């Protein structure tokens, strides 16, 4: 088992009382598995992904990644985990604006020390970015930017790719294409994929679907 989340609880201080976002969430993920996480906007999908990636602390519960508890690690340990084993794709793309497409694509792989094994021409071709390598993010369309972000995530050969509404900022057909690309690349590299979306349509393509509502997960 690659990922084992157990009894996760998380609340945020609200205006009057604590708002419980996650109320005992458990899930597990095998290597190479593709899982869709659905739920209304504001249901806590992003919060769950952030906790798994060690970007946000939990109130209670455990996150075991490859048998190690993410919650017990210090900032350096969590950073090392993200660097070497987790690729993240955000809704806002979050590319580095001052680096060009080529540099952005290999950036995560370089951090992970795996830049040597990246076949950049092939990667760029599969992302449809072969002609854009020298451009800067601000010169790309939203769909193109998200494809760079996906390429950046998979190029570092992580065990797990997490995507947080990767198509949320894109129109429907572009979104579909980006999603298909993500799926194909994940399957090709053998990475597990945890993808948060509120589109049931996209979720259908996953191996398994989890639904988050009122702080609890259902299949």
């Amino acid at each position, binding site marked *: 088992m690659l990922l084992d989340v157990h009894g996760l609880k998380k609340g945020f201080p609200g205006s009057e009382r604590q708002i419980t976002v996650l109320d005992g969430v458990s899930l597990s993920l095998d290597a190479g598995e593709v899982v869709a996480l659905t739920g209304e906007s504001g249901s806590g999908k992003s919060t769950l992904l952030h906790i798994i990636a060690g970007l946000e602390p939990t109130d209670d519960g455990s996150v075991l990644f490859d048998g190690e508890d993410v919650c017990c690690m210090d900032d350096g340990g969590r950073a090392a985990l*993200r660097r070497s084993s987790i690729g993240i794709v955000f809704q806002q793309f979050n590319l580095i604006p001052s680096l060009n497409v080529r540099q952005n694509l290999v950036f995560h792989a370089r951090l992970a020390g795996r830049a040597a094994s990246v076949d950049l021409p092939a990667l760029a071709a599969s992302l449809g970015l072969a002609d854009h390598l020298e451009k800067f993010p601000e010169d790309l369309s939203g769909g193109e930017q998200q494809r760079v972000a996906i390429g950046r995530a998979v190029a570092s050969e992580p065990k797990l790719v997490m995507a947080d509404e990767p198509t949320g900022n894109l129109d429907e057909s572009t979104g579909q294409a980006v999603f298909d690309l993500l799926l194909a690349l994940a399957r090709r590299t053998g990475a597990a994929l945890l993808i948060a979306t509120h589109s049931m349509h996209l979720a259908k393509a996953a191996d398994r679907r989890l639904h988050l509502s009122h702080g609890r997960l259902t299949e």
Partner: protein
Amino acid sequence: MIGTVLTALLSHWRRRPFQLATLLLGLSLATALWSGVQAINAEARKSYAEAASILGGGLSELVRTDGGVIPVKTYAALRKAGWLVSPLVDGWLSAEGGRVRLLGMDPFTIPQGTGIAAAVDPSLYPELIGTNGKLLANPATATRLPELKDRLRVIEDLTPNMVLADITTAQELLNLAGFSRLFLAPNQPLLRPGLASVAPKLAIKPPATANDLGRLTDSFHLNLTAFGLLSFAVGLAIVHGTVGLAFEQRRPVLRTLRALGVSARRIVLCLIAELLTLALVAGALGIVVGYLMATALLPDVAATLRGLYGATVNDALTLSPLWWLGGVGIACVGTAVAAANGLWRVARMPPLAPARPRAWIMASDRAMRWQAGGAAVCLAGALGAATVGGGLVSGFVLVGGFLTAAALFLPMILSSLIALMARWSSGPIGQWFWADTRQQLPGLSLALMALLLALAANVGVGTMVASFRATFAGWLDQRLVSDLYVTVEDEADIPALMAFLEDRSDAVLPIWHVDAEVMGAPAEIYGVVDHPIYAANWPLLSALPDTWRQLAAGTGALVNEQLARREEMSLGDRLPLPGGWTATVIGIYSDYGNPLGQVVLPLDALTRHYPDVDRSDFGILVPEQNRETLTAALTEEFGLPEDRITDQGAIKEFSLSVFERTFAVTAALNFLTLAVAGVAILTSLLTLASMRLPQLAPAWALGLTRTTLGKLEFIRALVLAALTFTFALPVGLVLAWMLLAIINVEAFGWRLPMHLFPLDWAVLGALSLGAAGLASIWPAYQLAKRPAADLNRVFSHER
């Protein structure tokens, strides 16, 4: 991995070369001004130390209590009694570009370990002695003494502005019959008769130190340092602004880096490495500029110190490696100070913190209130220091606290003024303009504070300088009572000169004096004859109704302002004088520009108490139209060399030129500070411009053309500069008052009346408008030419 992170961080600067240039410019200017001033100070201190070491060399000396010359027979008596003493002749030679100090020593008796013994290789001794003995000087000093060319022997690394010779050579050149001082060798025989029995008129003087000169010149260097510090602070304002903004702009990148697995600690380390690199580059640049600046200013500074304090300072810089390191160090410290806040925020930033570059710029009202609170604290501290403490340091604390307070108050004052304008303005454009100006204020406030400081310093120092010039020129007119000044070569010529002038002039006024120690500090004692011209001209600060009559009657003495202030003396006090007698103070006169205390006695009292007075100087009263004929007669008929006759105008010109040079240094620093403030405004405007689109786009969409927007940008800069100047003017005048009434009195011992020069303010006001206008032209032009698409984009992806 560090390398990868650094690439990402540094790529920011590659995409924003202008921001990078701004940062480097601010930092290197700050470093340059700081280290330039330090270089000047270091050079001066080194020269003082050299002079002190060669003058004393750590040995005690015997001097005459009345400051007179030690007769040869006293010296002989001491030697015979077993005292191990060595004679020294110390005096000044006139040379091109000011005087040169001449030291005459006795090679046979000079104790080893004195500065002079160390400076002269014993193999040179044979050349020194004899009737036509050589004089030693360094190359620069040698060129200033063309008349002695044949007798000079150039020694490369001798102290500047100084000539060494054998004792007889020095006596001959200075026309001296005895010795100035006697060195006391460190190991004296135990059994020797006491000083009082062998030489009752001599006293032991402890070794001279660099401090003697240091004390006198401290205030001058403190002034320079204060200016250096001010410019440094202004430069740091730029750095703080750019670094803070760069951090804030890169927050999304930092967040992404965290998400991609870079820990907060690593990010901070990388940012520190980045800043360190920038600091090193800027520091190196700054040092070079600072070096050039110091080289350019040093001759003026040296001339000033020579004229004002008689201190000798090298004209050329010889800097130690420590100075270079210090320059780089100060650049790093400056960067650290300017970036500390930003770094701290990054270190504590949660990984998912949102980026708000505009929030950084648009600091809240709360920050402004904090600043006002800080200003109140500074002001209270300054006033406290002024009332509790005393002395120069508390004076500078007062000035520093006051300026800081004024700068911190500025945003609040501007904000209220703008709010007031907004209330008065009608029409949508006016309202939008004022609202927008107010919103921009926090982003510009640092630059405007820098402008305020530069302007206030300009008004303050300018007023002081101009007041000084006005007072000094008027005072010189009065004080230089005689029309011609002559110096005889040999005192034996005096009767002949008197007879010669008898019916060629209205009066001959001896200007005889001794240099002596009065109340524990070096001073000059002058004697004057009874002549109505003194009563008519001599500027007295406090006097009795019949001061001059009393002086003529021999019942008192006049003292200069600095001596009176230093010893807290007023009319009627008893003044102890060398030789163990006292005189009543019957008048206090202003004596601008003289570092020494001065006493004026009736001439016969002077010669009675101090028979060894220097009698070579005379003033001559002669009608204007006869002046040239008399000068010609003195040189041709009487045979006085031309350089021994000076007319009043030449003396006045020389004295004024000394001060002009002093103030040339101040003026240069003043101008540089203003320039730095101008750069600060430009850079803030440009950085603001890039983030103001969301603010401007709605106004554009509502029908303001881009040209109008550009014009409004330009006008805004002018308005803000004008408001800042309006506030800077009273601040500067208060500063001027502090400088004149507190700092000057503490530093020099005399107080100047304050004069106002509205014309100078008008020029400065125009200059600040010009600087702001110039700084805003480019950003305004860019805005006017901005593609509509840029503005449109604001609406398409507003996040």
